[in-house]
């Protein structure tokens, strides 16, 4: 049952991602992105990561997607025109290389995973999903990456202002 749900959610995620790439209408692409985000949230839930599931739904599927749709509507982006011819040699080579790469990243899954931290028992899973465990980790061993992430956001903010403000 769990496995069936996982494959269902993963399948929808992949289809949504394909939709983002292939749709010509930006709004359809955005909807594809919503499908991917929500089904990823389901995958997190199946892995007992309840907190990440909630955050994924609230922040990504909710807030970020709302912003994206707003921006698309404000900028009034119309259907994208197909500019280039359909069969450029570069495209063929690109698709070939992408296919090769796709096969290459599937290779790791041929190896049998043993798991180093022991089996995923009920008690272990219960612990991993909890907000308390997550925050203990975040402010304990992972304090430095957490703080670097805040610098990263600051850099993003300053960079965005630098690039976007009409007159500095």
């Amino acid at each position, binding site marked *: 049952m769990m496995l069936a749900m996982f494959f269902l959610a993963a399948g929808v995620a992949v289809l949504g991602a394909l939709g983002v790439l292939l749709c010509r209408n930006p709004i359809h692409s955005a909807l594809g992105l919503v499908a991917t985000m929500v089904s990823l949230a389901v995958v997190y839930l199946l892995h007992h990561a309840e907190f990440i599931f909630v955050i994924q739904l609230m922040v990504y599927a909710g807030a970020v997607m709302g912003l994206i749709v707003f921006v698309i509507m404000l900028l009034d982006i119309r259907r994208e025109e197909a500019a280039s011819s359909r069969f450029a040699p570069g495209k063929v080579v690109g698709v070939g290389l992408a296919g090769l790469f796709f096969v*290459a*990243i599937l*290779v*790791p*899954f*041929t*190896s049998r*995973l043993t*798991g*180093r*931290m022991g089996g995923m028992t009920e008690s272990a899973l219960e612990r991993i999903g909890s907000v308390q465990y997550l925050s203990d980790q975040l*402010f*304990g*061993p*992972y*304090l*430095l*990456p957490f703080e*670097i*992430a805040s*610098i*990263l956001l*600051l*850099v*993003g903010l*300053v*960079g*965005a*202002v*630098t*690039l976007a403000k009409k007159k*500095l």
Partner: protein
Amino acid sequence: MNFQMADLQLLAPHIVVLATALLVLLAEAFCKGERKGYLAYLGIAGIVVAALLTPRLFGPQRLGFSGMLAGDGFAAFFYFILYAVGILTLLVSQNYLRDERFEHGEYYALVLLALVGMMLMAGATHLMVVFLALETMSIAIYALAGYFRTERSVEASLKYFILGGFASGFLLYGIALIYGACGTTQIYDVMAYFKALPALTSSPMALAGIGLLTVGFGFKVAAVPFHAWTPDVYQGAPTSVTAFMATGVKAAAFSAFLRVFVVAFQGTHVEWSGVLWVLALLTMTLGNLTAIAQTDVKRMLAYSSIAHAGYLLVGLVVGTPEASSAMMVYLLAYAFMNIGAFACVIMVGRYGQENTSLDAYAGIGFRFPALGLAMAVFMFSMAGIPPTAGFIGKFLIFKAAVHEGYYWLTILGVLNSAASVYYYLRVIITMYFKPSPDEPAVDGLRVGPSAALATVLAGVGVLYLGIIPGGIIKLAEQAVRFMG
């Protein structure tokens, strides 16, 4: 809590540079003046304070923040390379930005923030910190590349951003696969796990992870075939940013490349060194051959930067402590000579006219003797002709390669280096032996005290490293001893 005051000591230089960046932002907001050149000096003062806090990191290795950040000679040596890059970049920028009417505090703040990211990369001993630091550095550089908002500048920024986003994705997926194979992303734990479980070296998951990390780092150091962005981005970005990218990003990326590959993946050296062997050869050859065909000095320097990444990759292929210390000396030398060369390129241009085509350089050697001399020194150094820093760097790397029996790679590298002399000397020949046209493109130099100081400092650095390199080489050798 597993966090002590001792950990803060390892982070002190980063905190100082970060605080300076914030101070620069605040200073600009509160001091409404037209002239903002003092912000560059504020940044330099911050870097100098950080540099004063760094020497105590030399010595035996200490790990802080639950094994996330190292305080060792390796990190400290790279911090000093990055300080040199930061100070020279700020000095070069000040005058250039004023002349281009684009002097704003955000520029200096972004340079300092990128510097924090680079320093964290050099100190990181955990792949998660490596990734976050790399992103911090990259996002600041994306914004800096588009800083001038001209069509070319924005194109450079967007190209770098999109391709860089892809490369980050590869890097992150590689880290995920390494975590899948080893159950940890702490660099020394990964090393121990590979040692404890030799079967892991043939595990497809671990090898695919190493491969993806190669792609991610290869992109940042502009190794062929991940170099396609380099010429356009280097040419389109503001020249001072190009100098910062070519030296700072390269040094930071190579520091992480070294620590991850030489330390964490030392058990799989046989596997990855073969791939890097080919990459090194391709990078050197393609960079040099394409540079020969260029008629634009800035673009030529972009391809030459690819070629230099190739020489550095030779050091990584060898992978011994000797080669690592050689790469560190090379990166320091490269910082001086490359920023120096770009400083000269900036001086030749003027507002609205960059004058980067080779024809513009005709005859300027005699009309501006000091500039001609400086450019000649930097070109000789890039070509690897003694007594300059470039020669010492190449010599050390090829020596390390010969010691490990990489004869073919050394021969091909030296041949490449000989071919590169052609296009470096062509700049000198154009400057001195081509008559200047009746209406010269360059009627005056855009030179200010800060740019002149930067050029002199870079020139002194190049000659010092070229003539009395003993102390620095010894320091680099000591620095890698504690790397693990």
